[in-house]
């Protein structure tokens, strides 16, 4: 065989077998900010080798290599890292990329965070996967007992609406994690009757539902204009929440499915306490 042919053969081998050449690392890739937080809580932060651009908590997460965002995974980067496992949540819309990775021998684990009890189960699943069941149980019982404490607080009966976006008006409906949290804390959600997870409400529906408290979570995505937003709400004086000046702004990131959820819940309870 001539030298030239040998070179071509070598080239072809390299071309088609690049994933044989990359060595499986012991690392973990997380494709959701709340999964990253949970991994750090389980003491697995040092094993994370890839996260999303939205993984900004805890501080250490910011320094880890970014391999994707909500709608996209950089499959080449993941293949190059060749992690031991990729952890993703079920509601992510990146199925094609995930199938691509699985076909190339990368293990992918799906967790579900759609509902509150699924969140609890997912903590157990995650800790089992990494043989940290003790830590997982500890975290879970802490979250549960803290939520239990909040639940025990006697709140006046308020009708709360969680607003996710104003233009157009999108609110937190039933059938989702945040609605479950409100229900768990015995707080009534004015849009809880909708089967759509985040229904697109008209202004008319907002007025008609007569919420006594408005919590606007959209500031995480639309940084500016809190004063403008307030002015917009204030034109509807027939809404009890507006009349009694009970419009609050919170960051939706405080309601990620991790231990920080308790802090978000605590804030809501404090707002509602007489």
């Amino acid at each position, binding site marked *: 065989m001539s030298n030239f042919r040998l070179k071509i053969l070598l080239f072809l081998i390299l071309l088609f077998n690049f994933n044989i050449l990359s060595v499986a690392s012991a690392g973990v890739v997380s494709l959701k900010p709340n999964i990253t937080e949970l991994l750090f809580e389980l003491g697995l932060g040092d094993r994370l080798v890839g996260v999303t651009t939205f993984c900004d908590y805890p501080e250490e997460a910011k320094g880890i290599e970014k391999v994707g965002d909500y709608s996209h995974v950089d499959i080449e980067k993941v293949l190059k890292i060749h992690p031991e496992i990729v952890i993703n949540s079920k509601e992510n819309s990146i199925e094609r990329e995930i199938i691509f990775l699985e076909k190339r021998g990368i293990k992918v684990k799906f967790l579900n965070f759609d509902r509150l009890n699924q969140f609890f189960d997912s903590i157990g699943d995650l800790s089992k996967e990494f043989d940290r069941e003790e830590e997982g149980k500890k975290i879970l019982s802490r979250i549960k007992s803290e939520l239990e404490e909040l639940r025990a607080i006697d709140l006046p009966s308020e009708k709360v609406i969680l607003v996710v976006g104003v*233009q157009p008006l999108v609110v937190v409906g039933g059938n989702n994690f945040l609605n479950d949290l409100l229900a768990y804390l015995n707080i009534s959600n004015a849009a809880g009757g909708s089967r759509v997870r985040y*229904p697109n409400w008209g202004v008319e529906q907002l007025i*008609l539902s007569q919420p006594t408290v408005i919590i606007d979570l959209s500031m*995480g995505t639309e940084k*500016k204009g809190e004063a403008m937003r307030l002015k917009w709400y204030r034109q509807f004086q027939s809404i009890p929440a507006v009349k009694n000046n009970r419009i609050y702004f919170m960051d939706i990131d405080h309601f990620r499915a991790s231990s920080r959820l308790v802090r978000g819940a605590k804030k809501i309870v404090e707002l509602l306490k007489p």
Partner: protein
Amino acid sequence: MKRPAALSFDYWFKVVGVGFCFFCIVLFLLAFIGPPFISPFDLISSKDPLAGDLFFKARLPRVLFAFVVGGALSASGVAFQSLLRNPLADPYTLGVSGGAALGGVAAMALGFSFPMVTLVAFTGALVSLLLIYRLAQVNGRLPSASLLLTGVMFNAFAFALILLINSLISFGQAHQILFFLIGSLEAVSLNEVLWVSLLVAGGLFILFFQSSHMNIVSLGEETTHSLGISAEIHRKIIFISASVIVGATVAYAGLIGFVGLFVPHFVRLIFGGDHRLTFPLSVIGGGIFLGLSDFLSHLLFWSGDLQTQLPVGVITALIGGPFFIYLMKRSL
């Protein structure tokens, strides 16, 4: 009423008059029907602040806005179809809406507040209008083919930039941009409706007096040239007024498709091709069509366990498309 061979003022007055009355009746009914139904008596007695809020802060602006935007889009559809002599032309073909959407999306990505977003969107429409106007000119004339191609290319370019911005910004903003591209008649104040109406009314006023020239313009350059008529100045006036109308509506309502295409053809199929008649009727028809579509988009999943509303563009296309094909097949 039988259609006369030549358009008489009598016939024009009757048809447009009946159309306008119908327009007012539908507008009045939709403002009260809902959902939910608001009783006019509750409003007058004004004991219930809820009814007042519902009607003046939410319902009335939305319904008026739907009628204004529908009329505006349909009017500019007639104008562009005559200008380009292309039945497929609509407000979006000429790139003006692309420019408006690009301005709005860019302003959103930069975190501007809502009134600023609208202002930038309108500016985007005007800048793209001037740009297309300059680029499409050949030896001081504005040929249809050049205008159409420039518009289509500009639109493609603008949408590429929108997608570029979309992929660079955060998830929450991307959601908002999506709604800008789908269009929404929701959450406008009476003040904003007034502003849009003023701009639209100005454009409609000019276009109305150009409607007899639209007949000449739609003959095409070669024919007018051989007849010894110069329609050049009218082409420019029509193009600019229609573009201003589109800019104002896109800036406030986003991209609502299909109205500018469907309504003028619908009117032409019934009343023939004389622009003096089709122009006012298209304005009336566009308002009614978008008003009813908006009503349905609210009504369909209002009650029950969904409690959500559809983007109005979904309704305009779902109703307009099949109905239009049916009418076309029947008339052929």
